């Protein structure tokens, strides 16, 4: 059975965020915020959560390695800059130590008397939004596959890497479907790489969450992204069901036309791999 390996410091897993940074990502979502900004916020929040999950009183344990690739214009670039610019994948402790900056934000917390109060907290930023140029998705798949092949070779006993791909546009450098299939064939002893896709369509259709078939999807491009995605492993399926989503047998890691809440949910579910040891 694949996707059973426990995640430990001697057998970490990896998450690769693959983010479309083409011009169309400047378009606003229903909350008025540009897609690029919204996705950057959620990537930062997800990195924050991953760091927090790994942080114990004595420090941050390297259960995860994390990378971000952005693609737009003529290039695929490392989405992590500053001290993290030298490589794509980094142990989570290095990510913890190297945000670009740490902002002060407010959150509402229980006041212990049935109400809520605002509390300040420090929120690190690693990934800034960009949105310009065309959509070199094939190039991005090539680059991701190169990085993941090296990672799988170096970590044969680990839970396989998860790719979280976020896009709103059609590929402008060819058909990425076969490249995605090759990427999904990369594997560790615990199974093949997982490719989960979030399609931020500008079409006005209703969202489609973790479908088991492409028949309900409105256009060929959404259908292709569905085919590029991996079936959800049992554990992720159970987590999605716990979140109240209707996820049936054969469901794939694909969401079409996600709103803001679903973007957060997608990243949360996609990064809840196996138990940490």
């Amino acid at each position, binding site marked *: 059975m694949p996707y059973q390996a*426990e995640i*430990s*410091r*001697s057998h970490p897993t990896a998450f690769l965020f693959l983010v479309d940074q083409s011009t169309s990502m400047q378009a606003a979502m229903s909350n008025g915020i540009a897609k690029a900004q919204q996705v950057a916020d959620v990537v930062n929040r997800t990195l*924050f959560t991953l*760091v*927090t*999950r790994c*942080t*114990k*009183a*004595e420090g*941050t344990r390297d259960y995860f390695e994390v990378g971000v690739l952005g693609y737009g214009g003529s290039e695929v670039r490392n989405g992590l800059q500053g001290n993290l610019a030298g490589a794509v994948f980094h142990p989570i402790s290095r990510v*913890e130590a190297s945000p670009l900056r*740490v902002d002060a934000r407010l959150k509402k*917390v*229980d006041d*212990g008397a049935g109400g809520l109060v605002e509390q300040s*907290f*420090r*929120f*690190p930023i690693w990934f800034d939004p960009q949105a310009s140029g065309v959509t070199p998705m094939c190039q991005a798949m090539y680059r991701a596959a190169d990085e993941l092949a090296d990672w799988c070779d170096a970590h044969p006993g680990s839970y396989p890497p998860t790719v979280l791909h976020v896009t709103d546009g059609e590929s402008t450098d060819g058909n990425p479907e076969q490249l995605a299939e090759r990427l999904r064939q990369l594997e560790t002893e615990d199974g093949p790489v997982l490719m989960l896709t979030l399609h931020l369509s500008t079409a006005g259709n209703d969202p489609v969450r973790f479908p088991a078939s492409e028949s309900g999807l409105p256009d060929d491009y959404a259908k292709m992204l569905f085919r590029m995605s991996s079936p959800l492993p049992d554990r992720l399926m159970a987590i999605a069901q716990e979140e109240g989503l209707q996820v049936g047998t054969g469901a794939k890691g694909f969401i079409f036309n996600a709103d803001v809440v679903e973007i957060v949910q997608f990243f949360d579910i996609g990064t809840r791999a196996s*138990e*940490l*040891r």
Partner: protein
Amino acid sequence: MRVAFAGQVPKDLAFAGEIEDAMAVATEAGRVAISDGASESYDSRSWAQLLVQRFVADPDVGPGWLNAAVAEYREQSSFTDLSWSRQAAFDRGSYASLLGIEYFQGEHWLKVHCVGDSVAVLIDVREACKYTFYYNYSRLFSQRPDLLSTDPARNTAFTAYPFFASHTTSWRLDAGAPWVVLCMTDAMGEWALRQHECRQPVWNELLALEVQTDLDALVAEARESRDMRVDDVTLVRLSFDDSRADGLPDA
């Protein structure tokens, strides 16, 4: 009552010092507690340790007891001095189970408190397993356990009556029988109940453990065969076969 065996095996042998289970024994007071600190939480080792120490000092577990434990934990931390990541992890809280045993010698009965997925098993050595608590089937370990948290907002379910009452039971130890109680954290508890359901002689196996290396070997074999989940293991075996040996005063 005497502690016939007490041992622990860490989940990761390369990091043996990081075991997040805790146990405390006060034989003169007739109290024993074990706790399993959750792996994915900030400082579950300290929290588990605090819970077991508080139990053996004061076994009157309830909402007030829990609130006092949380207050003590939070007083020990200097939140503002922590890095952003430690602050965020502290805010997520630390989580642990609690299994506490109180022995009332003169009345020959035990009171068992259990929150979470640690397990107590009462064994009459002549007749094998009599009762288990709180879980009694291995399949129950697949559900999300109730764990005591350092975050008061996560403890609201525990403060409602009759949570603690329903997580407490009493076992009478009829005179003359060679009673044994096993206290186990979840990985061993799930394994033992499953072995029992498969009619394997698991209780004899656990009763035969004499030294730490026996437990190490048993756990290593069960992990190797993938019969036991890899997690910290704590086992305490209490024996009630010889009341003269425990030194407890008659009530």
